[in-house]
């Protein structure tokens, strides 16, 4: 009875104190839960963000988007289709076993080979490895990746694969891997409360990660919690009240509030996602370049960036982000000039203006409605139609099939900042993401040449030419690349956001 009484008093005292946050417990207010903790069995960005703290890759990216060897010591390109990676020694998995060259091969085979996951299943991440044909062990420290055709993107894409332990996968199976992760990363899993949080603990024997990024060693904080808070206002509230220390997807309109708070600040990083308006180039209205130019002159991008995006986006005049490789920085800009729009429309045979529908998904509704009112103001009467993302994809990304619809507000991500996986799909004739239905053989030839060109400078030039070519045709209205915004507690040091939206926490400290 007395013990019970004492517990009662103790708990009462504990409750009176401010919510006791462990000094070394870093909590991330995160938009969503991981689908799985198996690095080879998902296709989801947020899931990878969490997994990346448990598992390391052959290569990694620093927050300035440079590629660094991580589990690899170094790598060389032997021929256009062959890469050799030298693997570091002395790396241990969380269970104390050593990471060997066998584990690296096993990991890549598991992803690349058909049926590699067991039970006849293949990894949904296979396509992220492009045309990888085989993975061979050359000697105890060297592994060779061979491609079926040249693919300059391989080093940029390898950070998307994390190395697993062969013995562990054999022991728990692919089913077990979903909930029992065991990697060589800075943190190990302590608890996964589905839908609520992923709790990670420091791995004390961590080898230190990439040597190219300074301050290596075991993680600074003892524990990391990814706390799922889907509502953006709730995430901001949790940050301001000190419940969490880092939040992702900070809405632009909350920036002032976070910056005015004594215990938090906004951290912004240039994102990699390009926003654009796709016009149906095969449609009756937008097959005329004059009409497309009229649209370009009708949109005041700076106004929308200033008012809706909190000034946190950079305008673009081609599909590539200003930070991307091969970006043409001398593209002409279509200035905001609604009178010019009306003139162009009249020239194109529409003196009374036109009426169109603008498709978009729910999350872009605000922007779409602002664009619609600017267009309407310039004689292009625009009605916004909101649909589910997956339906719009079917409607617009027809890969050459017939298209219905006038205009589509959308975006394309480019986490490698290499033109290959944004320029080609959105602009090559009949390609996967060519929502505008743009077809230009001259451009196709340029893109094809650049895709296999191994001379970096020459490759960059080709993409610059391509951007200039497209800019004159305006198949799309290129809008902006927004910054990714994070709210960060002032107690956090040594962490900065990364353009690929990863939150790597092994160097972050909590003061």
């Amino acid at each position, binding site marked *: 009875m007395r013990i019970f009484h004492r517990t009662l008093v103790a708990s009462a005292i504990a409750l009176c104190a401010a919510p006791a946050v462990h000094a070394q417990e870093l909590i991330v207010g995160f938009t969503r839960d991981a689908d799985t903790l198996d690095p080879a069995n998902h296709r989801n960005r947020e899931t990878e963000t969490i997994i990346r703290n448990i598992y390391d890759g052959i290569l990694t990216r620093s927050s300035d988007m440079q590629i660094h060897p991580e589990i690899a010591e170094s790598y060389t390109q032997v021929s256009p289709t062959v890469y050799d990676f030298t693997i570091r020694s002395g790396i241990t998995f969380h269970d104390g076993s050593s990471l060997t060259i066998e584990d690296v091969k096993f990991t890549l085979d598991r992803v690349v080979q058909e049926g590699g996951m067991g039970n006849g299943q293949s990894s949904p991440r296979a396509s992220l490895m492009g045309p990888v044909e085989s993975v061979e062990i050359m000697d105890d420290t060297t592994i060779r990746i061979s491609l079926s055709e040249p693919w300059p993107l391989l080093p940029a894409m390898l950070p998307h694969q994390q190395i697993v332990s062969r013995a562990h996968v054999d022991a728990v199976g692919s089913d077990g891997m979903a909930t029992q992760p065991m990697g060589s990363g800075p943190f190990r899993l302590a608890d996964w409360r589905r839908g609520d949080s992923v709790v990670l603990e420091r791995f004390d024997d961590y080898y230190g990660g990439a040597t190219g990024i300074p301050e290596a060693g075991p993680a600074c904080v003892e524990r990391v919690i990814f706390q799922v808070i889907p509502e953006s206002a709730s995430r901001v509230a949790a940050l301001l009240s000190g419940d969490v220390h880092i939040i992702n997807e900070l809405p632009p309109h909350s920036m002032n509030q976070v910056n005015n708070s004594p215990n938090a600040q906004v951290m912004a990083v240039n994102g990699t996602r390009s926003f654009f308006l796709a016009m149906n180039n095969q449609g009756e209205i937008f097959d005329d370049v004059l009409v497309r130019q009229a649209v370009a002159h009708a949109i005041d991008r700076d106004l929308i960036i200033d008012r809706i995006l909190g000034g946190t986006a950079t305008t673009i005049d081609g599909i590539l982000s200003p930070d991307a490789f091969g970006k043409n920085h001398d593209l002409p800009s279509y200035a905001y000039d609604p009178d010019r729009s009306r003139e162009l429309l009249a020239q194109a045979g529409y003196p009374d203006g036109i009426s169109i529908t603008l498709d978009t998904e729910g999350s872009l*509704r605000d922007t779409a409605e602002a664009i619609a009112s600017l267009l309407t103001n310039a004689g292009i009467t625009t009605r916004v139609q909101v649909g589910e993302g997956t339906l719009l994809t079917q409607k617009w990304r027809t890969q050459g099939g017939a298209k219905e619809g006038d205009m589509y507000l959308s975006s394309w991500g480019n986490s490698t900042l290499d033109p290959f996986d944004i320029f080609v799909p959105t602009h090559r004739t009949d390609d996967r993401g060519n929502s505008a239905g743009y077809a230009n053989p001259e451009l196709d030839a340029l893109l094809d040449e650049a895709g296999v060109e191994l001379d970096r400078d020459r490759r960059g030039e080709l993409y610059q030419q391509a951007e200039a070519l497209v800019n004159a045709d305006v198949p799309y209205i290129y809008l902006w690349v927004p910054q990714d915004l994070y709210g960060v507690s002032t107690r956090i040091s040594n962490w900065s956001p990364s353009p690929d939206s990863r939150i790597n926490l092994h160097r972050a400290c909590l003061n």
Partner: protein
Amino acid sequence: MSVIEQSPPVVAESLFRRNMAAFMENRLAFGSAIVVVLFILMAVFAPWIAPNDPYATNLFFRLQPPVWMEGGDWAYPLGADSLGRCILSRIIYGARISIFIGAAVILVATSIGILAGLAAGYLRGWVDVVISRLVDILLGFPYLIFAIGLMAMMGPGLGNIILALAYKEWVIPCRVVRGETLVTRELEYVEAARALGASGRHIMLREILPNILSPVIVVATIRMAHVIILEASLSFLGLGVQPPTASWGAMVADGRAFILESWWVSTFPGLAILLLVLAINVASQGLRDAFDPRFTE
């Protein structure tokens, strides 16, 4: 024949008058009914009442506070939303959506419910089995999940919302009608009509229906309040009417992202839902007390 045909409606009518009188005496319920009527008038005359165009965006007035706060302006009495649109005007126009959808769903659902319920309760046999089983199946679905699934299937739009809600809503009046019909069909005057060779259709629609209408109307008004909240919930989840149409639920949903800095964006449309639904609920409670003898105390 004429006597049989005439007498029940006459009884129903005088009963209706007496009940109406009872309802009028309930001041709270009567007052609420007036509030509901005011909402309807507001919806009908929205273009004349609204101070601004509810669809006109002006990014320079984005998130402007209500008039009584610092930075407020009489141009936007309840402030402006994230696109600089007048919140008051949007609430006034939003009444159209809420009331129209509420009324349309109830109308469709009650019509189907009456027909199905009468058929099941009067014809019995396999008709009853089929309808009752269908009702059981639909009751097994969680309401909102069923509606969300249907909206995903059919796509957004005003007509589809009405359908998505009516697909399940009809079950409720159907159960009421079926139960009442089962009792009423055994009453003497119905038996007499049957003995005189009246057709099943005649008996169901002319003899039984007028006498079971009171509980159906009471249930319909109560359910209408519920349907308005459901529509708002669907809009809240992004499955409602197309923009820029103002829907109260969508306004709350859009405003919740700004609630830390600009509370007015989602607070006022939420209050509008609350006020309308509360008024309908109080009025229908009064109707129930007055019309449904089983609840008169």
